[in-house]
Each structure stands twice: as structure tokens, then as C-alpha cells.
């Protein structure tokens, strides 16, 4: 089933850079045709639906877009577009559903991730309740990854504030059999055999929300994980109560202490090409969950997380009490990196100089819950 976008603007002109902005009231897009100098806002598509997962897959001959949305009335839907959002296809038989016998129904799609670069038909989906799905046909159909679903820990997983969601899928760039997933609030799990078997891997991560801050095998409220551009064994992790890095592919984690007092936050983004470079957007405490002291600040490391510098140029530094959720901060993969984040108060900020300076790209949107960007020209 194919439906046309309500916005004729989608067909108006060529696009070289696309930013998908998923909100709680539909999908918007920021489109540039002049090398990211200016962006035009179009949308909404799927008005009224919560778009928690967006994906721009550039591995094929043309960009393929995916959205995972949910209507409070009508349930979740997975859609694809091969024309940059001018039209969207929903599989007649539902591309992504829990199989008969699982005694489970899909609540929400949280993550849509392209598979290995040399397997353009492989796409991963992380969903709520926490489960991993994989497509071998470019997202036309998905199968439940049984190895994780049957894991003995699963009945003991507890939901975080957003639900029991599998929100992060990282495929190792040199070995597609090596997968990392993260679940709130179960933590990180690794597979070395393409998803057949999984091991909880949270060593070193403290649990500040339990008495004594114990280290648990699982039960961690990991908010997001990103892989370093230079060393695929290096990872950055934003936890409910701290920021961590790993130098061994996620088998153990070490606290990063370079941002004093900034433990809480949702997203972490690695620079797409520059080793040792990553970005955080810390929030004040898990009670408040807004940018601290009214300052909207992105923090950047260029030394693998040893030290962090605040980036504020172009970002509001007065009365800016905003929240940026785990998938609402992203990069476009270019160098210098384009960086984009959306807030729960409906602003979208962008940078095309590795975060040195920012500008407001859109405001007065519904709450932003997912942002993805890529060159598509």
C-alpha cells in the first residue's frame, strides 16, 4: 500500500542533504539543496502519529527511508520510501509483527538501523517490548531474532521511563556477526555470532539508582551507545547515571569524568569520520531532565573522552530549559560533520562545522523524538 505525502513540496526540487525529524505528531523533513547552507522544512506526514524511529539508508543505489510510528488509536506502523518521502509504502501484511506463539504484540518501533555496508538488504529494528528484528529483504519483511528473545534474562528485564525499549543497534563495521544492542533498563548485550547467542556486557557500569550503586550483570538503564569513527572497538555510552567508554568493543566500561556533575542525559553521538571525537548533551539530574541552568550546551571530546569542551555558539544560553531525547541527536555522516538535534519543545538546531557553531533550523514543531540525517544527492 502506497500513500502520497500530503506535501507537494516533497517533489519540488532536488535535495542533497536530508534531515528527518520525527515528532509526537508526525514526521517533518529539513531539506537542503545547497550543501547544507539553507534548509527547507516540509511536513507533517502521518499527522498525529508518534514517530520514534527514522532511518536514512544510503547503502543502495538511492536513499531508502524508513519510519516507525505509532498512533494512539491505531497502533504501530512501519513504512518505507524510495523517493525521499514523496510517497510511503506500508506492507499489506505488516512488515514487522511479533510471530504467532510469542504471546506479544508490538507496542513501538524505537530503532531502525541499516545492516552491514556489504549487505544492503539487511536492516535491523529495535522495538518495545524489548526485542530485535532483522530484515533480509531491504525492510519488506522482518523476523524476530530468536537468540535474544529466548535469552534467560528477558523475563527479568524492567522497563525504563520510556518503556521496555531496545533503542540501540550497532553492527561492527569489520565483522557483521558482531552486534551490540542496548535496552532500557536491561543494559548492553553483545553477540559474536550474528544474533544466535547474547551475553550481557555491563561490567564497570554502576547502578546509582539502587542501594550501594552495585555493578549488575544486567538491569542497567543505558540510554544510548555510539561507536568511534576510528577504532571500532571504542564506544561511548550515556547511562542514566554517568557517561562511560569502552576500549574493547563493549566487553567492559570505564567511567568518563571529564564533565563535572553532568551524569544524566540521553543521546551520545560519535563524529562520523574523526577518531576520538564524540558529542553529548547532558541534562540536569534525572529529576529535572532539562539543560542545566538554562544553558543549552553540546559537549565535545576530541581525545576519546578524556576531556570535554562546551559548544555554545548559536545555542540559547538564557532561559533554555530544553530536553533532548536519546534519538533526537544525530550526524549526517559528512566531514566536516553536520550535527542536528531536536528538543521536546519543538526546536531543531543544526551545525555544519563539527559543532563549532549552531543555528536554529526549525521551531514551534511538536515535541521532537527522533532525528536522522544523511547526504542524499
Amino acid at each position: 500500500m502506497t500513500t502520497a505525502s500530503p506535501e507537494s513540496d516533497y517533489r519540488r526540487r532536488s535535495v542533497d542533504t536530508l534531515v528527518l525529524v520525527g515528532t509526537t505528531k508526525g514526521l517533518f523533513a529539513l531539506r537542503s539543496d545547497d550543501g547544507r547552507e539553507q534548509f527547507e522544512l516540509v511536513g507533517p506526514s502521518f499527522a498525529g502519529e508518534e514517530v520514534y524511529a527514522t532511518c536514512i539508508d544510503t547503502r543502495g543505489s538511492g536513499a531508502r527511508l524508513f519510519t516507525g510510528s505509532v498512533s494512539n488509536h491505531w497502533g504501530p506502523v512501519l513504512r518505507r520510501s524510495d523517493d525521499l518521502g514523496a510517497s510511503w509504502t506500508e506492507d499489506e501484511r505488516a512488515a514487522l509483527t511479533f510471530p504467532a506463539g510469542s504471546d506479544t504484540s508490538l507496542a513501538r518501533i524505537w530503532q531502525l538501523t541499516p545492516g552491514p555496508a556489504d549487505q544492503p538488504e539487511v536492516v535491523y529494528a529495535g522495538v518495545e517490548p524489548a526485542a530485535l528484528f532483522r530484515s533480509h529483504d531491504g525492510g519488506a519483511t522482518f523476523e524476530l531474532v530468536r537468540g535474544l528473545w529466548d535469552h534467560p534474562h528477558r523475563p527479568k528485564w524492567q522497563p525504563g521511563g520510556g518503556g521496555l525499549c531496545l533503542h540501540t543497534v550497532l553492527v561492527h563495521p569489520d565483522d557483521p556477526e558482531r552486534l551490540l544492542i542496548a535496552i532500557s533498563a536491561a543494559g548492553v548485550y553483545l553477540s559474536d555470532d550474528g544474533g544466535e547467542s547474547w551475553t550481557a556486557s555491563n561490567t564497570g557500569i554502576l547502578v546509582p539508582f539502587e542501594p550501594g550503586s552495585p555493578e549488575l550483570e544486567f538491569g542497567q538503564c543505558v540510554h544510548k551507545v555510539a561507536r568511534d569513527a576510528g577504532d571500532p572497538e571504542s564506544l561511548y555510552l550515556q547511562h542514566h547515571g554517568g557517561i562511560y567508554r569502552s576500549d574493547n568493543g563493549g566487553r567492559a566500561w570505564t567511567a568518563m569524568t571529564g564533565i563535572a556533575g553532568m551524569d544524566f542525559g540521553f543521546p551520545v553521538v560519535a563524529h562520523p569520520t574523526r577518531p576520538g571525537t564524540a558529542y553529548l548533551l547532558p541534562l540536569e539530574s534525572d529529576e529535572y531532565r532539562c539543560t542545566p541552568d538554562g544553558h543549552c550546551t553540546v559537549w565535545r571530546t576530541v581525545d576519546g573522552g578524556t576531556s570535554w569542551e562546551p559548544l555554545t555558539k548559536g545555542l540559547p544560553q538564557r532561559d533554555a530549559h530544553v530536553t533532548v531525547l536519546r534519538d533526537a541527536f544525530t550526524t549526517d555522516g559528512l566531514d566536516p560533520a553536520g550535527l542536528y538535534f531536536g528538543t521536546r519543545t519543538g526546536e531543531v538546531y543544526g551545525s555544519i562545522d563539527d559543532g563549532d557553531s549552531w543555528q536554529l533550523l526549525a521551531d514551534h514543531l511538536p515535541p521532537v523524538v527522533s532525528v536522522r540525517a544523511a547526504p542524499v544527492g
Partner: protein
Amino acid sequence: MTEVRVRVPTALRDLVAGSQSVVVDSNSSGDKVTVGDVLDALAVVHPALERRVRDEMGRPRVHVNLFVGADNVRDLDGLATAIGPGAELSIIPAVSGG
């Protein structure tokens, strides 16, 4: 085989080429045709419409109401509510949301 007209709400009419209603031929799974039987038949001819009414476990979605004539099936026998020849099944979004 019982022919039942299913009323489609405005928000879902794109799924049935803009129609206000669709007619499905329902087979009884027991001694009477039920709302569940009608939805089973709907799933064959309009699967995208049916899954907006029920999840993959076959449960009606929480914020969707199903009426046989003027009666909400939640006040009757749910999906087991009988539906006779000539009756209409209406899909109506609940007054909820934010």
C-alpha cells in the same frame, strides 16, 4: 456466509481507497457469525485496516471502539458478540489522546 458492512472512520479511509464502508463475507467459526469472524474476514481483504483495529494477538486496540448497530461490543460479548445479516459493524476511534 454472512455479508456484513463495515463502517470505516475518516482517518482510515486511505486504506480502502477512500470508501466510507466495505462489505465482507464472513464465515461463522461457531454457531453464529461474530464480530471476531467479521474482523477475520476483514483481515483477508483489507489487512492494513484490520490490524489498526486489532493487534497481532487478536485483541482490539485499547482506544478503538467497535459498534454493532448502536451497541458498543465492549458492553456485549466483545469479539464474541453475534452479528446478524444486515447489521453493520462500525469502527470508531475512542475520544482519547493528547
